C-alpha cells in the first residue's frame, strides 16, 4: 500500500520537531547528562497529589462538563484576577484544556480561515508553526533579537502586519530565550493592536517563573486588549504538573465558545482527577510556587555566570527556566555544537534552530536541574569549549 498517497498531504508536510530529533540522538548515547528537558525537576507539591488520591478514593472518575469543573473555572478566574488583574466570567470566558498545547491548537482552529496569517515571535516553542499550518493558516515569523533582549519590538510588529494578519502569538516569558515583556514594552504593543482586529494568543505558561521584583504582566491587562486576547496558561510549569496534562484558555466569549466546540468533539473534557487536584493547586500552593521560583532564580544566576565565564555570551533571561547562550564564537553551527558536545562530553542541550531559523547560533540550556547537576554539566561544557580553542 502506498501510504504517502493515502495520508494527508498537509500532515505529511509537517516535520517532527528539532527537539524530538535531538532527543532521539541523545537517547542513543550512554550516560548522557542532560540539560535539555523542558519540565520542572520538582515533583508536584504533595498536597496536590493527595487531593488527586482523595478524588480517586471518592470515586470521582466520570467526565466533567466540557469546559471543565465549575469550581476549577471559578478558581482560575480568581487566580487571573489576582495575578493579572483581569476579570473573566468563569461560565463563558474560560475553558479547561489538556495542557496549554491543546488550548493553543483550539485557538488557531477557532480563529483561522485558509490563508490567514499568524505572526509568531521566534525563537519560540516549536508547536505554533505546525499547529497554524494544520489549521490552514500561514505562520509569519518575527525574529526577536538578542540586542533587543529577545523582546518583540513595536516596529517589527508594525512591519509584519498585512491585511491578512489574523493573530499574533506572544509567547512570554519565552521558551527558549527566557525573555519577558515588561509593562511599558507591552503598552507599546497594545497601542498598535488596539486599533486593529488582530487577536493576540498570549502564551503565558511560564508566567509564574518571572524573576526580579517586577511581576509578570499580561497584554490582556491593557485597555481594549481583553477583547483581543486569548490568554493561555496551565499547571505544568508553575505547579510542576506536566504529567497531569492540564491547561486553560481565557478570552472573549465568542472565541471561547468556538474553542469549546473543538474541545468537546475532540477531547470531551480534561482529565477529571487532574482538575480536582488543580483546584487545590490554585488555592493552596502559593508558598510552593514561591519556593520553586526562588530555587530556579539561584540556578539561573549560576548558569548565566557559568556560560559567560567560559566565553559563551549569555543573555540574562528574566523568565522561564532556560538560558540561550550564543555559540557563534565557536564557529560551529547549533547542530554541530550540540552533536559534538554530546559525543565528546556526553552533555545534551538543544540546538537553537529547533525553535525557528533565527535560533541558529544559539543553544537552549534548561536549568530545571539540581545545582550539583548544573555544576557538573557546566564543567564538561567548559572542557569542551577549551578543547575547541586549543
Amino acid at each position: 500500500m502506498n501510504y504517502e498517497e493515502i495520508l494527508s498531504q498537509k500532515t505529511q508536510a509537517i516535520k517532527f520537531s528539532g527537539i524530538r530529533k535531538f532527543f532521539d540522538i541523545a537517547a542513543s548515547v550512554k550516560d548522557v547528562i542532560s540539560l535539555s528537558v523542558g519540565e520542572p525537576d520538582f515533583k508536584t507539591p504533595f498536597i496536590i497529589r493527595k487531593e488527586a488520591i482523595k478524588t480517586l478514593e471518592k470515586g470521582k472518575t466520570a467526565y466533567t462538563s466540557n469546559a471543565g469543573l465549575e469550581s476549577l473555572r471559578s478558581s482560575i478566574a480568581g487566580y487571573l484576577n489576582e495575578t493579572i488583574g483581569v476579570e473573566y466570567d468563569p461560565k463563558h470566558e474560560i475553558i479547561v484544556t489538556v495542557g496549554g498545547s491543546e488550548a493553543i491548537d483550539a485557538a488557531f482552529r477557532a480563529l483561522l480561515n485558509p490563508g490567514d496569517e499568524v505572526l509568531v515571535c521566534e525563537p519560540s516553542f516549536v508547536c505554533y508553526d505546525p499547529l497554524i499550518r494544520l489549521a490552514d493558516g500561514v505562520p509569519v515569523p518575527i525574529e526577536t533579537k538578542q540586542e533587543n533582549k529577545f523582546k518583540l519590538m513595536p516596529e517589527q510588529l508594525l512591519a509584519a502586519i498585512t491585511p491578512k494578519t489574523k493573530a499574533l502569538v506572544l509567547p512570554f516569558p519565552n521558551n527558549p530565550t527566557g525573555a519577558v515583556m515588561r509593562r511599558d514594552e507591552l503598552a507599546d504593543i497594545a497601542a498598535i493592536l488596539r486599533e486593529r482586529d488582530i487577536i493576540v494568543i498570549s502564551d503565558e505558561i511560564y508566567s509564574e517563573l518571572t524573576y526580579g521584583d517586577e511581576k509578570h504582566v499580561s497584554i490582556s491587562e491593557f485597555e481594549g486588549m481583553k477583547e483581543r486576547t486569548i490568554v493561555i496558561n496551565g499547571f505544568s510549569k508553575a505547579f510542576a504538573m506536566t504529567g497531569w496534562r492540564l491547561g486553560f484558555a481565557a478570552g472573549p466569549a465568542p472565541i471561547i465558545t468556538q474553542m469549546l466546540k473543538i474541545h468537546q468533539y475532540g477531547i470531551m473534557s480534561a482529565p477529571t482527577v487532574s482538575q480536582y487536584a488543580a483546584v487545590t493547586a490554585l488555592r493552596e500552593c502559593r508558598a510552593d510556587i514561591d519556593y520553586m521560583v526562588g530555587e530556579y532564580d539561584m540556578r539561573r544566576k549560576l548558569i548565566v555566570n557559568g556560560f559567560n565565564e567560559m566565553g559563551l555570551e549569555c543573555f540574562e533571561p528574566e523568565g522561564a527556566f532556560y538560558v540561550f547562550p550564543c555559540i557563534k564564537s565557536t564557529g560551529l553551527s547549533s547542530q554541530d555544537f550540540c552533536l559534538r558536545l554530546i559525543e565528546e562530553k556526553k552533555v545534551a542541550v538543544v540546538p537553537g534552530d529547533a525553535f525557528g531559523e533565527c535560533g541558529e547560533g544559539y543553544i537552549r540550556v534548561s536549568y530545571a536541574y539540581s545545582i550539583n547537576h548544573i555544576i557538573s554539566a557546566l564543567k564538561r561544557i567548559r572542557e569542551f569549549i577549551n578543547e575547541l580553542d586549543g
Partner: protein
Amino acid sequence: MNKLVELLRKNARLTNNELAVMLGKTPEEIEKEIAELENEGLIIGYSAVINEEEVDRNSVTAFIEIKVSPQAEHGYDDIATMLAQYKEVDSVYLMSGSFDLSVTIRGTNLREVALFVSDKLAPIDGVLSTTTHFILRRFKEKGIEFPLIEDDERGMVGP
C-alpha cells in the same frame, strides 16, 4: 531564612564564587558571612554524606535508645558528653519521650557494634537499659536522597 545556610546545608562544597553568583553577592562577602557563621558557632562543621554500606558492605549503623538515671546537678550532661567521646559514636541526642538518650553508632561489622553496647555502654554507671536498632537500608540522610531510589524519570520528551 538564611539562604546561604540553606545552600550550605544541602551542599557544603559549593565554592564561594558559586554561592556569590547565586545569592547576588561578591565572593568576599560570602567568605565573610561564612566566617561569621563559623565564629558564632552557627556552623560547627562540615561533613560528607557517605553511602556507608556501599563503601564497606559489612559496615553497620545502629540507633541505640538509652534510659539513664539523671545525676544530681549535672542531669544527663555527664553521660552524654562521655558517650560523645567514643570514636564509634556518630551522634548523641537527649530525647523527649520514653527513653532519654539516642546514640548513633557506626561499626565495621555487627559484632563490633554489639560488643560496644555490651562492653562499653551498658556497664556505665547510670545506664538503666539500652535498646539497639540496626539500620537496614538508607533512603535519605541530611536532606539527601540516596541514589538508585529514583532516577530522573523525566524522559527526553518533547513535541
